[in-house]
């Protein structure tokens, strides 16, 4: 316990780094991109942007 108290910053950094690396692994594994263009989603029959209206005629 005293060791943890004396090295809490390193311990916190280790937890943080593990979290970040874990999230990176999960994102990469499931194909999730943090950055990039998020496309507009339109459900069937849902109202959507005017530029795309003609697609649903």
């Amino acid at each position: 316990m005293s060791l943890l108290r004396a090295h809490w910053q390193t311990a916190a950094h280790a937890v943080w780094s593990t979290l970040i690396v874990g999230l990176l692994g999960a994102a990469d594994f499931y194909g999730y991109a943090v950055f990039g263009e998020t496309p507009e989603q339109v459900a069937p029959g849902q109202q959507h942007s005017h530029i795309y209206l003609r697609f649903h005629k």
Partner: protein
Amino acid sequence: MPTLTCPSCHSPLQPHAEFGTETIVCGHCRALVGIDGSQATPLGRQDESSARLASEAPLRLGARGTLRGKPVTVTGILERADGDYTWHEIAIADAAGDVGWLWVDRGHFSLGVCEGKQCVSYGADHHYHYQGHKLALFNKGKARVVAAVGEFPFKIDAAALSEITDYIAPPYVASFEDAAWWVFEYVPLADIERAFGVSCPAPVGIGINQPAPYQRQRRAFGLVTVAALLAAILIHFAAGRAPIAAPLVAGTVDLLAAKDAPPESFGPFTLERRWNSLEVEVHAPVVNAWADLTLALVSQETGRSYWTSRGVEFYRGVDSDGPWTEGSTVSTALVRSIPAGTYVLLAHGEAGTWNQGSAPPAAEVRIFDHPAPTSNLLLAIVAVLGVAGLYLFAAHRFESARWQMSDYEPKEYT
């Protein structure tokens, strides 16, 4: 030791022979009295600061405690100063009568761990060393005694100025004074309060030999950082699959079609992962013209569609500075968060011209699978290095605060 009387007020003095007392402060008139065997000789008088010292010193005269497993008693307190800067030196005697010292600087306590000419050595690297620790020059000054209470194993000359040179290698400070080294080790305030059963005011600022938590942890912190970066790189290339050179879907889109013409359809193609990031590439041989594609990925299972648009434009000409170009015939974008499923690509194109340009009849669109984009890895690296940067910044601030007390530039110590 026989009972002596103060040469100034004739009050009885009771120096302790086991402490090797050479100076005692008269408890009645505060005079400094030299002790030489059975002789008491006046060394000087003190003003009110001595009375104040008795009541305001970090520890009281006669206080008992157990410091680092050794019972000790406070037998003398000195207040010393270099100009306006003051500190306390507290004599503590153990059961055998051996007198040690506590140095108290702005509420920071340090315990004397070595005194004598041989405590510190001069190395081949032209630095002083204490027990393998390289010392850094911190300050030089001339110290005088402001006030004293109790008894001391040396003669006190209140008028004398002693040259003191301080070197540090936290938790140690080595002071060179009167041709001898006095090495002190930093003692956390909690240890002092526990040892003497007292409550002291919180220390002010950073002690000159206060161990930096950052210094102690820097190696482990660095190892965690490097390990995390390596793990991130390994996981990125292991968990994420490399992009495939062949497009998932490709098509040629008519740019001359009427605005209300139905979109062209390409595919189907299948996305397998939970989420999918796709690289959309549009190419058209435009010259002084532009082409825009409106694109929709339509899920064959749910009917839900994902819309984006991408265009290219390329212009060139000649002005007073010579030929110029602007834009490109190729454009790419990373489209993210497309769920797994089978999709068809719907596309509609339109084009326009500028300054007698020519609109191309068609544009090519290609969509590539782009798993595990590098931006994910870069973000993780920034997150890990960002915390490491904060740590370095905090360490820098700690050392800056320490060296504000110094007349010298910060130097390396180990």
